[in-house]
Every structure is written in structure tokens, then in C-alpha cells.
């Protein structure tokens, strides 16, 4: 029996829903607006909302002061590289656990997830030292490795969940057809898991793009991504809120666009296969 909702209740919940959505969206809207204010206006009390002197001077200033393209390129290299590396490691790992599980598979999965339970700062000093010894500070390779490792548990978990949905029969059919393990993964498993892999990639790119702890601590110039670009406007001589906001808007713009186009995949990815 379908539950009946009166029009009044429906209207009320619609308002509540939009209100909640607005509250969640507000900081981003505020950041966007602040980017178009003068530094003075950005500090004003009471704060101005929409009716202020709109200006693009912050954008002009930050693009003159910093090389946005270089930071953005680094973000693309780090997010793309760490995602690719994570996939290369995670697909075989998830395949193994999904189709040839042992008694310990569940434990291994939990152990991997448990590495996410420790705050990253807890291993900052050893990581920093390792990076010095290996000469990886402020290098793409070093950062790609760290970002890959920090997201790997989630990537493996997501792929594992997707692979579990693939009927075992089909892989066995491939085996009967003469596919080796690698051919089975390349020609059968991976193409069948494309929707799952796509949402995993999207989520991983977003997480890596926005990752700020390791990127801020282990890069300075050469490998510095957009997180460094934002942080550089919070200077010792004071915070330039308007410039900081303009920089943040520029930094998140690519990923917002990507997320917008990948909405469906993302929803599927974040519900971990619950939506079919």
C-alpha cells in the first residue's frame, strides 16, 4: 500500500529539503561571492551578501602573482597519476579477494580499511624522513605514491564490492574458453566492471584533487598542486580573504565541473553498489 502524503506535508518537506541543501551549499556560495569583493568589503561587519561592488580585481591579482596553470597541471598529474597507479594495484587485488577468497580475506579487507583510521599527521615525521632519504620531497612520483597509498583501501573496497556483483559463471566461461588470469581480467572482468571502475576513478580523482595534508607538507614548488596555490594566499602578513576565496574558487572549479558531469557515476559509487 502506497503511503499518502498530503500536499501540505509535501510542501513542508520540500522547504525543509531546500533549506538543508542551502545550508550545506552556503559556504561554497560565500566563498564564490567573497572572491568578487574587495579585501575591505570581505572583512566588513555586518557582512554584505549580494549587494556590494562586484569586482574581478582579486582574480586579476592572483593570476598575476602566481602561475595558476602550473599548479593546476600539478593537480592533474597528481590526481591522475595516483588514480591510475591505484587502479593498477587495486584491480588485481580486488579480483583476488572477490573471486578466490580465503578465510583471511575479510580480515585483510578490514585491515586495509583500518589504515584509514589513523590520522595522517601521526605518521608525518616518519614519512617526511623517508621522503628526505629517498629524495622524494616535492616530486611528482613521491606525491603520486603517497596519494595512491592513502586512497588505495577505499579503491580496493569499492572495486571489491563491484566485482562481487559479477557472476562467477562468466569468469569461469572465460576460463573454459582458454583465457589466462590476465586475459580474464583484461577482456572480461574489467569491461564488465566499467561502471564501477568509472565511479571509483571519479571519486579517487576528487579525493586526490582535494587532498591537502600531504600535498601541503611534502611539496613546495615543483610538485605543488592547487591546494598549495590556495594556501599561499594565507600569508604571514595577514589573510587576504577575498584573494583566498578567489583562489579557492579557481582551484575547485575543474573538479566541480567534473563532478557535475559525473553525478550519476558518483552516486552509484558512493552507495557502494546498493543502487542497481
Amino acid at each position, binding site marked *: 500500500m502506497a503511503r499518502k502524503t498530503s500536499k501540505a506535508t509535501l510542501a513542508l518537506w520540500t522547504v525543509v529539503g531546500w533549506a538543508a541543501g542551502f545550508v550545506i551549499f552556503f559556504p561554497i556560495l560565500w566563498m564564490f561571492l567573497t572572491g568578487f569583493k574587495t579585501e575591505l568589503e570581505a572583512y566588513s561587519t555586518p557582512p554584505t551578501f549580494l549587494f556590494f561592488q562586484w569586482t574581478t580585481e582579486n582574480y586579476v591579482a592572483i593570476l598575476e602573482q602566481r602561475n595558476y596553470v602550473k599548479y593546476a597541471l600539478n593537480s592533474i598529474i597528481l590526481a591522475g597519476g595516483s588514480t591510475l597507479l591505484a587502479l593498477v594495484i587495486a584491480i588485481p587485488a580486488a579480483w583476488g579477494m572477490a573471486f578466490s577468497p580465503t578465510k583471511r580475506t575479510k580480515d585483510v579487507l578490514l585491515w586495509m580499511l583500518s589504515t584509514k583510521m589513523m590520522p595522517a599527521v601521526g605518521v608525518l615525521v616518519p614519512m617526511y624522513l623517508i621522503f628526505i632519504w629517498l629524495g622524494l620531497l616535492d616530486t611528482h612520483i613521491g606525491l603520486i605514491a603517497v596519494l595512491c597509498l592513502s586512497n588505495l583501501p577505499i579503491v580496493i573496497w569499492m572495486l571489491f564490492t563491484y566485482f562481487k556483483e559479477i557472476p562467477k559463471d*562468466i569468469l569461469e566461461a572465460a576460463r573454459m574458453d582458454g583465457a589466462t588470469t590476465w586475459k580474464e581480467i583484461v577482456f572480461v572482468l574489467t569491461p564488465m566492471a566499467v561502471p564501477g571502475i568509472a565511479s571509483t576513478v571519479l571519486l579517487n580523482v576528487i579525493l586526490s584533487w582535494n587532498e591537502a595534508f600531504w600535498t601541503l607538507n611534502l611539496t613546495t614548488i615543483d610538485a605543488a598542486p592547487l591546494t598549495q596555490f590556495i594556501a599561499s594566499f594565507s600569508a604571514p602578513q595577514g589573510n587576504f580573504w577575498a584573494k583566498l576565496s578567489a583562489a579557492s574558487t579557481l582551484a575547485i572549479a575543474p573538479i566541480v565541473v567534473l563532478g557535475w558531469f559525473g553525478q550519476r557515476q558518483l552516486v552509484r559509487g558512493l552507495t557502494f553498489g546498493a543502487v542497481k
Partner: protein
Amino acid sequence: MGKIELKGVEKAFGTVRVIQGVNLVVEDGSFVVFVGPSGCGKSTLLRLIAGLEDASGGAIRIDDVDVIDQAPAKRGLSMVFQSYALYPHMSVRNNIGFGLRMAGVPTDERNRKVDEAAALLNLTPYLDRRPSALSGGQRQRVAIGRAIVRQPKAFLFDEPLSNLDAALRVSMRLEIARLQSSLGTTAIYVTHDQVEAMTMADKIVVLNGGRIEQVGSPLELYNHPDNLFVAGFLGSPKMNQISGVLAEQYRAATIGIRPEHIAVTRGGDGWPGTVQVSEHLGSDTFLYIDVPGAGLMTVRAPGELGVAAGDAVHVGPDLNRLHRFDANGLAIR
């Protein structure tokens, strides 16, 4: 060539022995059906032959080569799954040709072979479709096409018709049997459907609890079951099994009479009884008759029989077709 020999094949999952010392010879070109109740190990046995499961003991020989340590693909067998197991992201052409592609067959030759197989199975118009755009019967034919295109030593069928509706099942049954005999390739076919077993098999292997109960031609098993299990499993409706005083008259612990080997008369020879239920199928009449000393007996009479529930009748078994079993359930011959 495709002669398959099993010697003392064992399979255990943990402490559960699902296959217990199976010995069997499948002759080249024959159609062998594994039949048994669910959980009897028939699918596991097939998967052991395929190499999809590792045997815990014994030997499996294909054309006199021990394959127990060989990967599935190396054994030269092909399999048709109950779920069809088609590759959903590939066209029918690529599904059928996948095995050839894995074997490194050049594209031209591969296409020629796929076209041949498709023509044989009436799949030519569908070669560019995805499996999702096909009906159940068509999907099953693609799965069969995938199996025959590689010219394997033997086909393994794992309940291939269970997902089809009744009418399609009958026509696919015929198609598979005809295809197998025209190709002359050895086939092992797993089913729980005794009609499929009786109609398709050169040789039926009846399995129960991980052991072979009896091996023989369909009519051998029907006419001369080795034991009560085989007697009761094959034949529909089930054989009547009667123990006690009535059986002792025939010097047996249990006697078995098939429903079609009983004559029902009003006041003729035989055991007196009362009709409980009569089912009229048009071609046959099934009677469930309460016979004192024997319990409820099933009778199958050809055509229409003017007998209704509550009628007093006499039940006369055909004594030439009576089966006798000893206290261990084994046939007395």
C-alpha cells in the same frame, strides 16, 4: 576423440566429502547424462572434469592423458552453463569467437568458424547483437555456439535448459541431441530432470550422496534398477514400493511396481482397493488407490478410464514386471 575416464575421483569441501570415489568411463562420442537429486554432487563432478574445481583425490584422464593438474583451457573441453554465462559486453559474434581469439586464431578464420556455427544454430541474423537483446532460447544457442566453435574433445552441459520455459525446453532438448549426434562429439550433460535424462542419454549415471548408484542405458535403468533409489528416482509417476507381508509373498523385503504396470479392474484379479483420487489427463488416467496392506498405490492407465473416487476396484500388478529388493534395498535377480 574424447574419451573421459574417472578413477576413484574424490572431492571434499572441508570435512564434507561431496564426491566419494567415483569410477566411470565415458566413451568417445557418447552422450552421458548425470542425474540425481539436488546436492548429489552431479554438478561438482562435472566441474571436476572441467577443471573448475580441484579434485581432492583420484585421476581424471581425457584420451589417456591425466589432466588432474591441467588448467580448464588445457583440457580441450567446452562448457554450457545454466545461466548461459555470456559476456554481456560483447556481441554474439565476439561471444562465440572468444575462445578462438584466446587461442590466437587469425581473424579471418575466426569469422569463418563463427559464421559456420551461427548458421548451424540459426543465429546469423543476431551476430551483431548484444546478449541482452536476445531471448532466453537465443542466449542458450549462443552459449552452445561458443561451445561447438572450438571443436572440443567433449561438451559439458550444466543444467542448460533449467532457465527456459517448458515448451522451449523440449525443442532445445531435441536440438542439442541432434547437434551432438551430427557432430559426434562426446557430451556430458547434468540435469535433475529425469525426462531429459531418459530422452537424451546413451548412458545415464545416477548419482546420490556423491556416489554412483547405477550406470546404464535409459531402458536398462528403467527395466532393471539395481536398487531402490534408482527404482524410485527414474520413472514418473514414481514406482510403487511395498514392503511387509505382501512383499514377503514374493520372497523380497520390498517389491516395486511401476504405475504403468498395473491393471485396474472392477471385480477382476488382484488386490482389492478403493480409489482415493483420480486424475484425468486425457491421454492417461492417474489413480491413487488405497490398497489394504500396501498403502496408497499409484496407477497409470492409458486413455480414459471410467473410475471415480470412492469406487471399489481390484489392482492387478503385472507379475513379469515386478521388481524385488532385499533388506539392503538391492535388487534380487
